[in-house]
């Protein structure tokens, strides 16, 4: 039964009944309800239990500030935790569960925490659970289970999220009266405007009021403004869209909730969208938050903010109580009393801490039968599971204390209002400071630090007419600054009222100290009380940031929207300092929480990183080759036949390459074309070897060092012409090397005439490897491949079946081999031609593993595997490559004290003494294990394989003074195998003289 539902009014459709469940009970509400309004309509008082003391709690607010009605929504993979009932639009079939309370919300066993609450003051956990030390694990186990709110889903999210970029002249945040006026005045000028509001409907505070504007009801007036905006093609209206972050350079992020309010939607539809906005100007018109008042037991269910009461009556046709007491220190709250009375409440009694002053609001309240008492405060709220009565005391504003309890009054609703705090969140996020306003008693935005303006109540402007005026002016001013012709807009007519000023009442101060009174809550979400703040001060936590951290004030999921200002003011009282000197804490994104999913957007799963595949990729996957990830590339690891295991496949591939013919896709090699008349002098600085001495058509193996002297990258490079070179880099280093070369060229030597082009994707590389490679290739090309005309380390142009190719007689296997570069569009075709041509020779495709075995047998290093950032070319045995004469990048570093050390780690080979154990890669090399203290380590195993051609395992390692220790024995120790005895050898195992690759 919707016992609290009014017969008329509100933006709800009474013909569309929606069913929902709360904690397993079925209820109904109407289209247009929020979950909170539907719960109130159904007479639900307790919606949650508090964080620490498990006290029963009811709905306090009607928006983002709500601290208590926080639920788990839905179930299974689509469940969502931490959702505010005040922000959830009701839909049919909604399932909500409160996040605390065991065994039930109305009886929560952990309420004992409340009885012993003096043990659980601020920071109690820092003072105990320390002994015995081992027990922390157990304490923590229970603490973790007590803490936490909702449950994360256990299954992957089935929904989709999206990002959209937008550039605009003006972004307007908030579509209340000020924001709407700004949008209309800016929009009519032709400027590109985006206006976003977190509610389902535009209108902001006007949705909960009965103002008359330009002779129209507020409802009609909003409709006419929205209609005007929708008619403007240059204006984008976003509802259900929360601007949650304001970053540098007017970059703002909006979370649009596209389907959260729907009970059914098409699979694949976008659930939430992240708008990434670059705005030339930003208008902040987010409104303000009403503050609670702080008095004993101010957390009883049935205590509600005045603005929320008006909201529930006007927007949802729900009356939260029939016999109400309203406690206020300002005029704005009177509206709630009037609204209640008009909605049919039996009695409304106002307790006002101020003395009576002339005011239209007071008159209006009196006129509709509201009783009033001035110079009075509420001393206590009575009623455990819902408010039953209040204790009222007379109050002397001058000495800021209340007298003895004078009166007790029964009620079923206690409304409070401590004044308003502008929502300065986005202004602060943008880098703007705030200043304390002594007249309005709130922080208002100070000078903006980016191109933005705050207007309306988020600028501390309370009167409707002023808000409308600020909106118009702001819109006009901004478009004028942006070079548009501002449109003429008339200020709409609205009622002018006389009000009496608000008077701060931060805390109802009794004669007793706060510790002797029942709890006075400041931050509802974290159960932070006045005595917690006093305790923090007593213990020396006096800065606001310390108090915040020690008491958890403002650390809830409402991020202190409700309690922070009261907390600061009470801290000010405790320290006897004005609030302006307390300062604010930092406001951080997100303004309200956003899902990880929407921040991540589309770039998840397979889209997380681009996947680069070579032109031959389908050939590899057709052969069911397992893939190895190398940087962004996926490469075939090995090509198993039938049921072969990896070792057999790799052995077969290795033997094919060594004995007849192998073929490998080497397309992922980085390839850079370098030309220009200064190409030689540029490359002379880049490579350690003598580039200038290379003849045209010659290839050379080259290494590049960082300026720190350590090996950065390596690869074969070739001189194609007098001023034309072709460089290759490692697969993983390609992009990095290209950028690095460009940086040197452009920032250090911009005068050099050099041009570089990356050919990595343009060209594919096929390596034809093995003693029969020349014979097979010769059948396809006209070029004479004989050793006399095309010797080892030469390059030439050629052609196969009409396809232009570049041939390189180079070898990364130690065998006679050719690398063929071909336009990627023809690469697969060429590959297939080669496969066919090599058929009689058992041509065998091989993957990265065989490539590694073959090169390790020859002692060729892989940068990044056999080197890390601490290996220089001398360490790696590449001293022969290092020019003595010229300067090159990194050369000077090779002469530093540490580079000259005799006991540097050097690249060596390793053989296992038993001739059969394959040493784990990564194993450390020691002499013997120390019985106490660290064991000295002399190096580690960087590459290790079983060598099929040799019939025993081999390894490469970096070992201290390695080149002086050939023949020595060490122990290789890895994490999970027994020590393997190894002997140190030269880092070459096969064809020691290098005859095979140079074969005539």
């Amino acid at each position: 039964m919707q016992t609290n539902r009014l017969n008329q009014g509100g933006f709800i459709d009474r013909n569309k009944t929606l069913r929902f469940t709360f904690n397993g009970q079925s209820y109904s509400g109407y289209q247009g309800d929020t979950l909170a309004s539907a719960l109130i309509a159904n007479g639900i008082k307790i919606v949650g239990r508090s964080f620490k003391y498990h006290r029963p709690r009811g709905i306090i607010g009607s928006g983002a500030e709500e601290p208590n009605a926080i639920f788990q929504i839905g179930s299974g993979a689509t469940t969502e935790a931490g959702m505010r009932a005040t922000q959830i639009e009701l839909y049919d079939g909604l399932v909500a569960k409160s996040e605390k309370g065991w065994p039930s919300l109305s009886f929560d066993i952990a309420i004992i925490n409340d009885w012993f609450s003096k043990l659980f003051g601020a920071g109690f956990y820092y003072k105990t659970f320390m002994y015995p030390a081992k027990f922390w694990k157990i304490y923590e186990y229970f603490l973790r289970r007590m803490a936490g709110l909702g449950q994360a889903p256990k299954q992957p999210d089935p929904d989709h999220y999206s990002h959209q970029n937008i550039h605009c002249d003006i972004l307007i945040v908030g579509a209340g009266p000020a924001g709407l006026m700004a949008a209309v005045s800016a929009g009519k000028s032709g400027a590109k405007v985006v206006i976003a509001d977190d509610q389902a409907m535009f209108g902001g505070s006007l949705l909960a009021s009965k103002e008359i504007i330009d002779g129209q009801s507020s409802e009609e007036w909003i409709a006419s403004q929205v209609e005007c905006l929708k008619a403007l093609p240059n204006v984008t209206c976003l509802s259900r869209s929360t601007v949650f972050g304001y970053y540098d350079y007017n970059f703002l992020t909006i979370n649009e909730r596209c389907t959260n309010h729907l009970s059914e939607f098409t699979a694949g539809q976008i659930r939430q969208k992240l708008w990434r906005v670059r705005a030339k100007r930003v208008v902040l018109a987010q409104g303000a938050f009403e503050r609670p008042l702080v008095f004993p037991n101010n957390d009883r269910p049935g205590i509600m903010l005045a603005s929320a009461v008006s909201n529930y009556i006007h927007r949802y046709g729900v009356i939260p109580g029939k016999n109400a007491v309203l406690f206020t220190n300002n005029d704005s709250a009177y509206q709630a009393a009037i609204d209640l009375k008009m909605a049919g409440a039996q009695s409304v009694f106002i307790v006002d801490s101020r003395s009576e002053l002339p005011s239209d609001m007071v008159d209006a309240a009196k006129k509709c039968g509201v009783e009033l008492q001035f110079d009075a405060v509420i001393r206590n709220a009575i009623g455990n599971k819902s408010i039953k009565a209040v204790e009222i005391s007379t109050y002397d504003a001058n000495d800021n204390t209340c007298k003895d309890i004078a009166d007790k009054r029964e009620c079923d609703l206690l409304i409070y209002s401590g004044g308003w705090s502008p929502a300065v969140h986005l202004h602060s996020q943008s880098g703007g400071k705030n200043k304390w306003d002594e007249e309005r008693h709130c922080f208002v935005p100070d000078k903006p630090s980016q191109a933005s303006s705050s207007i309306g109540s988020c600028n501390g402007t309370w009167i409707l007419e002023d808000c409308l005026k600020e909106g118009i002016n702001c819109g006009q001013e901004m478009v004028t600054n942006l070079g548009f012709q501002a449109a003429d807009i008339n200020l709409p007519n609205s009622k002018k009222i006389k009000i009496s000023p608000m008077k701060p009442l931060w805390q109802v101060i009794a004669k007793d100290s706060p510790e002797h009174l029942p709890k006075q809550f400041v931050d509802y979400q974290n159960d932070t009380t006045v005595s917690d703040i006093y305790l923090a001060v007593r213990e020396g936590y006096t800065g606001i940031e310390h108090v915040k951290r020690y008491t958890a004030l403002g650390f809830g999921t409402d991020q202190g929207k409700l309690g922070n200002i009261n907390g600061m003011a009470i801290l000010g009282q405790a320290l006897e300092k004005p609030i302006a000197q307390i300062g604010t804490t930092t406001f951080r994104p997100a303004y309200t929480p956003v899902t990880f999913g929407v921040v991540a957007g589309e770039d998840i799963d397979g889209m997380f990183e681009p996947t680069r595949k070579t032109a031959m990729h389908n050939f590899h996957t057709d052969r069911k080759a397992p893939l190895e990830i190398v940087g962004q590339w996926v490469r075939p690891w090995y090509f198993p036949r039938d049921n072969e295991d990896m070792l057999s496949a790799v052995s077969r591939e290795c033997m094919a390459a060594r004995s007849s013919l192998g073929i490998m896709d080497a397309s992922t090699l980085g390839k850079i074309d370098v030309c220009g008349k200064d190409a030689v002098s540029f490359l002379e600085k880049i490579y350690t070897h003598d580039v200038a001495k290379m003849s045209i058509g010659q290839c050379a193996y080259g290494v590049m060092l960082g300026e720190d002297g350590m090996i950065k990258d390596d690869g074969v490079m070739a001189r194609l012409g007098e001023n034309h070179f072709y460089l290759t880099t490692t697969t993983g280093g390609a992009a990095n090397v290209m950028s690095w070369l460009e940086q040197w060229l452009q920032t250090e030597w911009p005068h050099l005439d050099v041009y570089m082009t990356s050919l990595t994707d343009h060209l594919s590389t096929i390596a034809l490897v093995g003693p029969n490679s020349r014979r097979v290739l010769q059948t396809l090309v006209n070029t004479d491949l004989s050793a006399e005309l095309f010797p080892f380390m030469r390059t030439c142009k050629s052609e196969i079946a009409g396809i232009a190719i570049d041939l390189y007689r180079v070898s990364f296997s130690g065998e006679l081999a050719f690398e063929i570069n071909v336009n990627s569009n023809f690469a697969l075709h060429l590959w297939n031609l080669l496969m066919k041509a090599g058929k009689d020779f058992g041509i065998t495709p091989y993957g990265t593993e065989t490539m590694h075995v073959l090169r390790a047998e020859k002692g060729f290093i892989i940068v990044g595997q056999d080197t890390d950032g601490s290996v220089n070319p001398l360490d790696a045995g590449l001293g022969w490559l290092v020019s003595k004469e010229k300067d090159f990048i990194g050369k000077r570093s090779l002469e530093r004290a540490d580079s000259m050390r005799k006991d540097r780690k050097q690249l060596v080979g390793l053989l296992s003494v038993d001739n059969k154990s394959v040493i784990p890669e990564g194993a450390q090399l020691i002499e013997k294990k120390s019985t106490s203290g660290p064991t000295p380590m002399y190096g580690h195993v960087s590459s290790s394989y079983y060598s099929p051609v040799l019939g025993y395992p081999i390894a490469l390692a970096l070992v201290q003074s390695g080149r002086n220790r050939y023949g020595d024995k060490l122990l290789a120790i890895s994490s999970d195998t027994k020590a393997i005895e190894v002997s140190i050898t030269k880092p070459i195992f096969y064809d020691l003289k290098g005859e095979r690759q140079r074969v005539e």
Partner: protein
Amino acid sequence: MLLIKCPWCGERDETEFSYGGEAAIKRPLKPKDLNDEQWADYLFMRKNTRGLFLEQWNHSVGCRQWFLVERNTITYEIISTKRINSDALNSEVPQ
């Protein structure tokens, strides 16, 4: 998120650029004449200025040009950007 004006392409989002650190660190013409401390100074020591800072950025997914940016490292405000040419560079070199 920075908005950087590439001197060749105009204003673009930070995500189009990559960072190159302190600008105008001149590579010594004769490294072998430096002692280890002097070499280390060139190699590693950085101004790391808190405040106005001259740095280099690369329009890496755009025109791939390196250019100079004068930026406040506290407010992140970019004061100016300019192309690198031999003259500009030399005029920025300290000493």
